[in-house]
């Protein structure tokens, strides 16, 4: 049995880790993450030059990676760096959807790699429905065979700069039915689209999108009319694997920061790490983070197994949600006032870690899903 990554992936991870440590300053990141754009175009371009996007995309679409192992390796490194640029939204969600499309849509993936477009998946609707099949945005078929869509998408990350939206919509079935879901790939300047965007607590902008009678041609559907649930579902599962790996990278970084602090911060004449009450808390964090890592490994191994994927993905997302919040809260507490400051790195890692539980289903949702599978 061997849990070591392949030498190539280890090199990729180490290269990225070093790059983020040396070139991706957290204070610059924080300024960009809370700016009107929500990330840094300069950092985005510099990181693209490293080949990060290629490592997320299949060779047949001009990438050189795209497997579950590639994705978890890269996202763990992105988590360590607390990277806010849209690798998840563009490199995973949009690219996975477009890779199932027609030739024109597939060529958009190549354009992503050439930095010529920024497509964004617009799927999530109400704030508290996490089900992958929850779609109320309406697709109506017009007399001439073209379509119109109307509806609202909420909390779409990095949407304000997008060139294309991949909009999920339905022409038949109940709100949560897997049948009847289509995806439309449209340029964002199409008439009838309104964007309201908000600042976020963990960096990046989110937007509510309103579509009012937006015209769609039949060539703009990704996949067959009403048959695209499996495309969205697979893209989101890949997204879950990615952010669970990101969370692992964050937790490892938090562990390092906290351990360092316990060894250097002195009160009552000794490093606070000498207090047994503190030692046990830190030891517990280590135990939990090891469990989190195992859950992600499990999800990675079974990712291509159609019968096991959803169950191991839900198990991982549940574990990451539960453990992530604990790690964030405990690490702040163990730092005392220092953990509360903007100036110090920890808080920014903690915020992202907690908010990962709000993306693609929280711990409760995935526990219930696990039970149902």
């Amino acid at each position, binding site marked *: 049995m061997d849990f070591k990554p392949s030498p190539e992936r280890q090199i990729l991870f180490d290269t990225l880790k070093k790059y983020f440590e040396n070139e991706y300053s957290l204070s610059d990141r924080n300024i960009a993450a809370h700016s009107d754009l929500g990330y840094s175009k300069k950092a985005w371009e510099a990181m693209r030059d490293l080949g990060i996007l290629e490592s997320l995309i299949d060779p047949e679409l001009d990438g050189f990676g795209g497997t579950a192992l590639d994705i978890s390796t890269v996202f763990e490194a992105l988590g360590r760096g607390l990277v806010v640029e849209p690798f998840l939204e563009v490199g995973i969600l949009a690219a996975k959807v477009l890779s199932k499309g027609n030739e024109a849509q597939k060529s958009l993936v190549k354009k992503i790699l050439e930095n010529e477009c920024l497509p964004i998946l617009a799927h999530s609707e109400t704030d*508290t429905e996490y089900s992958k099949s929850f779609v109320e945005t309406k697709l109506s078929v017009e007399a001439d065979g073209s379509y119109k869509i109307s509806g609202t998408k909420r909390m779409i990350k990095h949407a304000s700069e997008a060139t294309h939206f991949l909009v999920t919509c339905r022409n038949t079935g109940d709100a949560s039915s897997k049948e009847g879901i289509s995806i439309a790939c449209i340029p964002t300047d199409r008439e009838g689209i309104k964007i309201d965007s*908000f600042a976020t607590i963990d960096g990046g902008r989110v937007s509510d999108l309103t579509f009012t009678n937006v015209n769609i041609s039949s060539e703009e559907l990704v996949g067959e009319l009403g048959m695209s649930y499996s495309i969205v579902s697979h893209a989101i599962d890949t997204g879950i694997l990615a952010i669970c790996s990101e969370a692992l990278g964050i937790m490892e970084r938090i562990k390092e920061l906290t351990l360092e602090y316990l060894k250097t911060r002195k009160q009552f004449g000794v490093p606070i790490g000498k207090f047994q009450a503190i030692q046990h808390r830190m030891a517990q964090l280590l135990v939990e983070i090891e469990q989190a890592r195992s859950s992600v490994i499990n999800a990675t191994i079974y990712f291509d197994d159609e019968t096991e994927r959803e169950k191991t993905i839900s198990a991982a997302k549940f574990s990451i949600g539960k453990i992530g919040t604990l790690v964030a809260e405990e690490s702040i507490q163990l730092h005392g006032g220092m953990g509360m400051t903007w100036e110090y790195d920890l*808080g920014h890692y903690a915020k992202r870690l907690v908010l990962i539980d709000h993306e693609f289903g929280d711990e409760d949702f995935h526990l219930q899903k696990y039970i149902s599978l």
Partner: protein
Amino acid sequence: MDLNFTKKQENFQIEVRSFLNDNLEPQVVEKVKNGIPITKEDSERWHQKLNEKGWLAGTWPKKYGGKEWDVVEKFIFEEECGSAGAPRIVPFGVGMLAPVLMKFGSQEQRDYWLPRMLTGEDWWCQGYSEPGSGSDLASLKTSAVRDGDYYIVNGQKTWTTFAQHANMIFCLVRTSNEGKPQEGISFILIDMNSPGIEVRPIITLDGSHEVNEIFFSDVKVPVKNLVGEENKGWTYAKYLLTHERTGNANVAVSKRKIQKLKKLADDAKKNEQPLSNDPMFASRLAQIEIDLQNLEITNLRTLASVENGEAPGAESSIIKILGSEIEQDIDNLTRKSLGKRAFVNEPDALSTGYNGAEVFPKAAAYASGKYFNHRKKSIYAGSNEIQKNIISKLMLNL
């Protein structure tokens, strides 16, 4: 056992309620209820209204403008304020320094400083913590050296809440390096406008500005601003801390927040059902409610013992731990119940001049920010670990 209020207490409760009803500004209540920070001016206007009624410092003796409330009346007042969404009375002057001056200050100090707290002429802040001295407060280094009629103060304080608003600070300073560290500490009052003081903001992880660093270089403080005796400051400081920790139960505030959370959960949908019907959510909520009901009784038991003349000792540590953790649990569940909306951070959404997109529900504007900001509750006023050390030592004799 009798958990009922007396007739007199009931009447007082009714009076408080109607006062709040008539005097609270809806726009400020809206901010408080949505967890959004209020401005200095919001606080000042509210203090003034309370002062006109004689309720800004209800527990004070009548001769200083108080109403001599007992613990139950204080409790009733705070509970009613909490549930109405009134701004919290900024505690540093009326709630913290005043009891110290009344017990240990000179008559001249009382006559001068107490009225100014009521009128709002002075805004106080608390200068205890230093970069090297948080939990181990007695190790503090900021020094005050006697020079004729003045002390010359040098050093640094940190985490000072609202120092940016304050014109006065009460400080613990080192006046002696002899003996145990506790034995060389004095309690002095410093004018924030003195030459040699610099205040720098510390921004917290949620992006707000409530705490600061303060640098003192050769700051001249008149000797008459020493409270009590030189090198006895530790006793006064500890006396103040027990005052700081009581009133940490926050039961009414937590109850109001639970009501708000229930409403959010009724309106939100999960699996096409109200979130409040979700068994996982319902179980989390019920556990918090039970914890809070228990705390309400635990808190009343503590109050009853104080009413009977027993001093609140380590019991105030129990209340501090529970009060902070339960409020954190509610903030946690509120954030969770907002689902994806919890990403939003627009704390200005309820202020005039906000021109961004409307945040709906309003609670989402700052719910995550509040959740992170309230991690402070288990850190300040003596961290919860320190409270457990106190319980271990004083109640368990371990």
